[in-house]
């Protein structure tokens, strides 16, 4: 999309946000530049509120929750080809309600959808963005048979169940067509799916499917590449996930050697310590929240990307598990130059355990 197009899209949506997997994000009906990254801290009156103790149910919760203001389907995959070259794939669908009216359908639907797709290699980072109107079939999601789509980008179950899935998207100079197979269960983040974002109680409903296995074909320029590797799907919805003074977040998902998974994020706050949250997922799907006091997450080196300084190298230390990790991006230029820009790309993890994963840095 051209620069002009982006400006137009931006204004079109009033103000919009993009976001991250585990971390909250959204578009807003009004303007909220001063309210944290992408206005995620704006007022949520009239929408359903996130409360602790909700019972999750599948397949129902794979579909949309239109009475909440924002929601996303966020898939990342760390892939490699036969020669060992590493690639990253991002497929994201965002839903936002521009008004809290309950689910009118058709042309009066208050839902608007946005898609982001990216394909990253060590030296290239190709992205695309789409917008779609809810209620008229251009974009949407259905719990069963599971599918989520915007235009011809889609993630859909091939059978009656959730897995196997097919994932497709593309833009100028790239496309991908991957099969996804679940090798483990979906896991509820936070306290049984209730994921807190600040000391003051901002929260979202959040679950992940971290045990997906992807394989298929990438097209990068004129080249076609057969790839496979682990993938991670995050599902999250909320009505006001951020405080107004939270400018952004740093979020990580890691597939460690040996089958363990690690998710951690920190919500930055103006003039205060970031709010940290971390979870350890064992290969059998058992998930354990880590005490923030046990986890040290710190930037190790900054680099200039798209005219701003961004911390692209990190250290993660969890002494209770004997873990000391160094996080480095596969491609430093993985800048998502979208209506609301952010950094998102595949990472390599070294140190006490090796691994791959995805990193999302917003609000820089």
């Amino acid at each position, binding site marked *: 999309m*051209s620069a*002009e*197009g982006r*400006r*137009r899209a931006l*204004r*079109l*949506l*009033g103000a919009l946000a993009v976001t991250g997997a585990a971390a909250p994000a959204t578009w807003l*009906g*009004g*303007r909220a530049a001063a309210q944290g990254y992408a206005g995620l801290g704006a007022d949520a009156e009239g929408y359903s509120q996130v409360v602790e103790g909700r019972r999750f149910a599948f397949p129902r919760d794979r579909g949309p929750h239109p009475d909440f203001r924002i929601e996303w389907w966020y898939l990342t995959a760390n892939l490699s080809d036969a020669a060992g070259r590493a690639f990253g794939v991002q497929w994201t669908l965002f839903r936002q309600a*521009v*008004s809290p*009216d309950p689910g009118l359908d*058709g*042309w*009066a639907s*208050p839902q*608007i959808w946005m898609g982001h797709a990216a394909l990253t290699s060590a030296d290239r980072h190709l992205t695309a963005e789409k*917008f*779609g*109107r809810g209620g*008229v*079939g*251009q*974009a949407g999601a259905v719990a069963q048979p599971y599918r989520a*789509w915007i*235009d*011809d980008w*889609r993630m859909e179950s091939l059978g009656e169940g959730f897995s196997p899935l097919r994932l497709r998207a593309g833009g100028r100079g790239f496309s991908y067509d991957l099969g996804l197979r679940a090798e483990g269960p979906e896991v509820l983040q936070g306290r049984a799916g209730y994921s807190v974002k600040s000391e003051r109680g901002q929260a979202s409903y959040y679950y992940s499917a971290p045990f997906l296995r992807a394989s298929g074909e990438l097209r990068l320029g004129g080249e076609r590449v057969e790839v496979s590797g682990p993938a991670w799907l995050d599902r999250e919805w909320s009505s006001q996930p951020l405080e107004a003074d939270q400018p952004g977040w740093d979020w990580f998902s890691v597939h460690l050697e040996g089958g363990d998974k690690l998710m951690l994020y920190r919500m930055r706050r103006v003039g205060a310590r970031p709010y940290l949250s971390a979870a350890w997922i064992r290969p059998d799907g058992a998930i354990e929240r880590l005490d923030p006091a046990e986890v040290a997450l710190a930037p190790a080196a900054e680099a200039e990307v798209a005219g701003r300084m961004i911390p692209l190298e990190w250290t993660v230390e969890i002494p209770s598990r004997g873990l000391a990790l160094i996080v480095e991006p596969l491609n430093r230029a993985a800048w998502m130059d979208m209506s609301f820009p952010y950094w998102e790309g595949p990472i390599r993890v070294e140190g006490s355990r090796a691994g791959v994963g995805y990193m999302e840095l917003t609000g820089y």
Partner: protein
Amino acid sequence: MNWRGFLWALTALASHWRRRPLLLAAALVGLAAATGLWIGVQALNAEARRAYDDAARAMSAAALPALVAEGGGPADIARFGPLRRAGWPASPLIDVDLAVEGAPASLRLMGVEPVSLPEAAGLALFGAGEDEAGNDADADAPPAPDYAAFTRPPGRALIAPATLAELGDALGVGAGDRLATPRGETPPLVASAAAAPGVLIMDFGFAQRLAGMEGRTTRFLLDPDAELPAAPLSDIAPDLRRAAPRAAADPAQLTESFHLNLTAFGFLAFAVGLFIAHGAVGLAFEQRRGLMRSLRACGLPAWTLCAALGAELLVLALLAGVAGIAGGATVAAALLPDVAASLRGLYDAPAPDALSLPLSWWLWGLGMSVAGAAVASGGALWKAARMPVLDSARPEAWFAAARRARARQGALAGALAVVAAGLAVWGEGLVAGFAMIGAMLGAAALALPLALGAALAGLQGLADRRWGPLAAWMAADARQQLPGLSLALMALMIALAANVGVGSMVDGFRLTFESWLEDRLAAEVYAEAEPGAAPRLAALIAADPRISADLPEWRAETVLDGAPVELRGFADHATWRRRWPLLEAAPGAWDRVAAGQGAMISEQLARRLDLGLGDPLALAGGAALPVAAIFADYGNPRGQVRLSNAALAARAPEAERGRHALRVTPPEAAEAVAAELDAAEGVSAMEQGSIRALSSRIFERTFAVTGALNTLTFGVAGIALATALLSLSAARLPQTAPVWAMGTSRRRLAAMELGRIMGLALLTAMLATPLGVALAWALVAVVNVAAFGWRLPLHVFPADWLRLAALAVAAAGLAAAIPLAGFLRTSPAALAKVFADER
């Protein structure tokens, strides 16, 4: 700063103007004319462009490729989701007339889906400006409603401010009110420049209901900037087919070239006005040399003197600026109806009739005036700053300096001529074209005094030998007078050249365009069916015995070299062979094209792709075709390729087939045939004469504007001459008095003076004519080609030259009349006194 000194100096300097009101008038008129005409022309251009933009906004949705119902009528909106999911960049558009209860005329209702609407639609709904809360950026842009307000009940109906005002007059409605229509109320109105005049834009959901088109859409727009999916349309939506964009409104491009000329006129007027001011200010400076020497001798510092001179100029410039802008606005307002009328004719849409002159224009105009005054008097100020205290007062110094400057002028003229020639040979593009014109006019203006001086020297020699001393004196005196008149004569020459040049171009354009239109519109009636109405039209044509030949013209769209190109198919018929205007053609061009073995391309396309006869043209859908002919396609911004209908259909099966050129026998029946076809549903038909009349009317309107500006420029040059002569008249007494003293009567002297001025004007006119032709050439062969990609044949109009020369001589005579009347009234005592005053 010594304020007392400054104020005294200012008072002393200003007192001069009281004694020389004519000189003051000359300076003021010069600056006012410069500012006023420039601002007037700019305001006119700006107003017209704004109207074009407004109109183009409504037109551009029609200029997009689209998907339409195969069988005619509206398309099924249920196709929207499947189309998008299959990767088609489709966006639904409702486009219908909407009757408003109580309103004098219906509005055009456009229902859009703002998220998928292609940017190229140009319906910049949310593209710029503030949201309703007034929170955003581009200060000039109108407020746009945010997405939620636009799409959610009650929604928003965007309407042009002018249309809203009209409805306000008729119905008493305003922003926020809702219009009553047969199917219910519209969403609340919001004034927005996003809507063209007469158009109501709202979200698709509301438009569906008001149009009575629930579940349907007029068409699906396709984003021309997006890739189309590989899968065929028939897999997704077999009831839809692709339609080429409707032709853009070509004449907008045509009028653009005239705006270029308006700008050139404005610039010339500015330059001529500055000449006047320069002459007057320069003379006033020379006349006050003695005064300034006295002031300096009394101890006034040079820079205080300069400050006083500068302050005086600033006051002059501001006064002249205000008067000029007011005058310019009046001129522009007087010319605007012509421009507005042409817009109505072009777009069938209301054009603005009122000229707005915002504060910024006033500031800009005053700035121009001050800058102009600075340019006109920079030399004088410089001299005042450097004047030695004890320099003797020499009123003739100006003329002497002018004489000395002649050699420099000659050198500069030569240099500019070399630059102009260089640009003519090697220059490329619009800027080079304008630079060449500037250098050419500058060189000619600077060379004029030299050429006139040489001519007068020749005359003087001739007079010496043949005509006696009085004639020799007359020629010698004319040479002596030349430096004082040269600036005014330069202005006259440039005005004349501009008239000859632009006049040639405009008249040539009219001739060319009319004959081209005559050939191009060779059929008597042109009919076009909306998608779906084509079979109905074909049946009507077949059933009408007055139609002697049906020449279908198919149309499709392709991309060549990254730019959209129109493919036009035609039926092989004697009408085209005889009449279609070709610029260049290979032997047997028509046969080859008819047989599908060649293509005809427009001049613009040939220039853009650098193609000549016989070169292969790579077209999608088949092998490359050799270029068989190149045709003129004035005013069409897009390239065009003409093929036989069969060849077109083979390459572009989706081609529109609803257009027909119809030969009618007898031709007198054309009007009736057109009217009957036009009455059929989904068919529009126009008789060739009406199309031509419409086009000609539009052009005549534009010519009216150009003609008026021609006259104005000429008037300014006349004023320049009059002011120069006026300011010279007093200074000339010392030259005239001795001749009078030797026995030549005042009446005779006055007649000689008049003859001399008219002779100089005639000489100037003779020199201006070739310059004007060169200017016409530059406009036609360089500027137009660079700006529009087509070239007009150069026509010359000698009768016009004679008329202009006569006008120039008459204007010079008129300009000389006032000072000469004064001279005739000069008492003998005053003449005799010259000898006493002589220094």
